[in-house]
């Protein structure tokens, strides 16, 4: 019997001598290039569309922090994304707060949910963890359905004002809004990058690769996993809250289980366990969704086929494959 408990993700690239070189330097340069590219992006692409991709890229990267670097497959990230979206939309609309406070409140809600759900879910591993997170997210979905005073039920929270950032900058201007979203995205990505390369992140990866060994080295792995999950949930919440301000809506779609599938698909396409994979996946899937908008459920079929293809033949994903070719972790 082959070992089905082998760690998920890419460990092959790391074994080659060239990868022994510090991967951080290359990654820093890519971050610089990415930032310059995104600064220029609104001049050749529709800013709202780019902001959508940035939100989902951050969402997928948050998911990948947990899946690719801790080895925990969460099927319930819609709970964090959607609830943060609701809280941000609700506070921005009905409370006298500025948008950055609304986003912070949404993020804080998701972080807290990550702590509670994490404490429950990390009691099991592997597929059980996936099933538990899915069930907990469904709990949140039913909560959203049954509290129409807060979520406005099927209609969702619409017409959320974008407001004035810090009470000064008018976010109704797409370019100002874009600057804020870009700052949030870069901040979130750099945080993820920092976490992965920190001693804490190294321990997370050790847990992913061999948990019993990490335990025998004296690490309290449950705590590390929980903290990893809280970070992931918080960043997913940041993405969801930002999305609520950008699109000025929060609906049941954001907490539905199909929303939990989105970051999984993006991460698979881009490359799990890579820094830049999820955002590449988010861009690919985002562009695809945009082109297939009128085709209804053919989009679902296509996404399913991509899932199947990636699992069967393209497990490294786009960035993972490139990383293998140039023998670097990116």
């Amino acid at each position, binding site marked *: *019997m*082959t*070992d*089905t*408990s*082998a*760690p*998920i993700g890419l460990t092959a690239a790391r074994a080659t001598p060239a990868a022994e070189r510090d991967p951080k330097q290359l990654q820093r340069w890519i971050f610089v290039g990415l930032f310059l590219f995104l600064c220029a992006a609104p001049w050749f692409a529709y800013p709202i569309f780019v902001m959508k991709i940035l939100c989902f890229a951050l969402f997928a990267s948050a998911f990948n922090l947990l899946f690719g670097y801790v080895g925990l*497959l969460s*099927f319930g990230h819609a709970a964090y994304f959607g609830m943060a979206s609701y809280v941000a939309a609700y506070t921005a609309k009905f409370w006298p707060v500025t948008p950055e406070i609304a986003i912070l409140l949404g993020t804080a809600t998701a972080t807290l949910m990550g702590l509670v759900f994490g404490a*429950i*879910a990390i*009691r*099991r591993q*592997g*597929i*059980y963890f*996936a*099933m*538990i997170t*899915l*069930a*907990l997210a*469904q*709990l949140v979905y*039913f*909560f959203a*359905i*049954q509290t129409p005073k807060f979520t406005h039920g099927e209609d969702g929270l619409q017409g959320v004002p974008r407001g004035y950032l810090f009470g000064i900058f008018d976010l109704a201007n797409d370019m100002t809004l874009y600057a804020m979203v870009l700052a949030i995205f870069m901040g979130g990505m750099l945080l993820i990058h920092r976490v992965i390369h920190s001693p804490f992140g190294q321990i997370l990866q050790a847990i992913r690769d061999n948990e019993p060994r990490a335990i025998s080295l004296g690490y309290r792995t449950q705590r590390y996993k929980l903290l990893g999950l809280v970070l992931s949930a918080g960043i997913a919440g940041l993405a969801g809250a930002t999305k609520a301000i950008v699109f000025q809506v929060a609906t049941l779609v954001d907490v539905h*289980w199909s929303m939990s*599938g989105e970051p*999984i698909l993006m991460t*698979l396409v881009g490359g799990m366990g890579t820094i830049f994979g999820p955002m590449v996946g988010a861009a690919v899937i985002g562009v695809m969704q945009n082109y297939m908008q009128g085709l*209804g*459920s*053919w*989009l*679902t*079929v296509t*996404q*399913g*086929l*991509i*899932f*199947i293809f*990636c*699992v*069967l033949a393209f*497990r490294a994903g786009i960035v993972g494959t490139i990383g293998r070719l140039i023998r670097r972790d990116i």
Partner: protein
Amino acid sequence: MFELIGIPPQALLGQLFLGLINGSFYATLSLGLAVIFGLLHIINFAHGAFYMLGAFAAWFGLTHFGIGYWSALVLAPLIVGAAGIAVERLLIARISGLNVLYGLLLTFGLALVVQGLVRNFYGSSGLRYPVPADLAGGKNLGFMFLPWYRGWVLAISVVVCLTTWFVIERTRIGSTLRAAQENPGLVEAFGINVPRLVSLTYGVGVALAAFAGVLAAPIYSVQPEMGADLLIVVFAVVVIGGMGSILGSILTGLGLGLIEGLTKVFYPEASNVVIFVIMVVVLMIKPEGLFGSAQ
């Protein structure tokens, strides 16, 4: 007759009975998941899609070919089971030996494809499937009204579940199956074609789901998402029961159905979530599940 806190016994027993019906679907589906998991080590995310396909095949047969309920009850599981075997051969077999999470992702993709295709051609509004004429109507038992069809669903589900238990735990083919779970290499050395056994197991597992789907067709409306929503509850049931024991899966499924029915009577707002809440409580007290063993 007795009366409980202002709830008439008719309503109480009626809801409890409905709960048992739901429970029998939980039991049949979680049983199939457990059987597949035992040998393939994957959680079949497409289980809900196969359940929907069973219901849909029954509707399709009746609408386009005039195939009646009783024939559908045999044909639909056979067809869906055969499709399952093809899926196992073509797709799932290719990822054996990889991390188990890939199985979950693969079958999730499969579920999206199946649901998307059905929705594309038949829309997402429910299709009606009539209760078979032989089982129309019901009988007033004095303390509650028993619709024949629902009584039949409960009875046949229990029979099917117990038969599955008997085959796995008490027959030669079952002992081969259990041996293959323990040590596939050794079983293969005895001249048993393990890959074929794996394919057949997957086929039987999804055929069980399709059978439940046909049973469900006259009760719930037939629509593409009927399986996906149910499957999430069944996942919670599996977490609560643990997948170690066949009888445990059956008991957990029926028991949780009953509890859900009770909740509908006393606190209807919570009936959607009560199983998830129980899951949380079980995880706090006995993380490996009621019938599971610590790994």
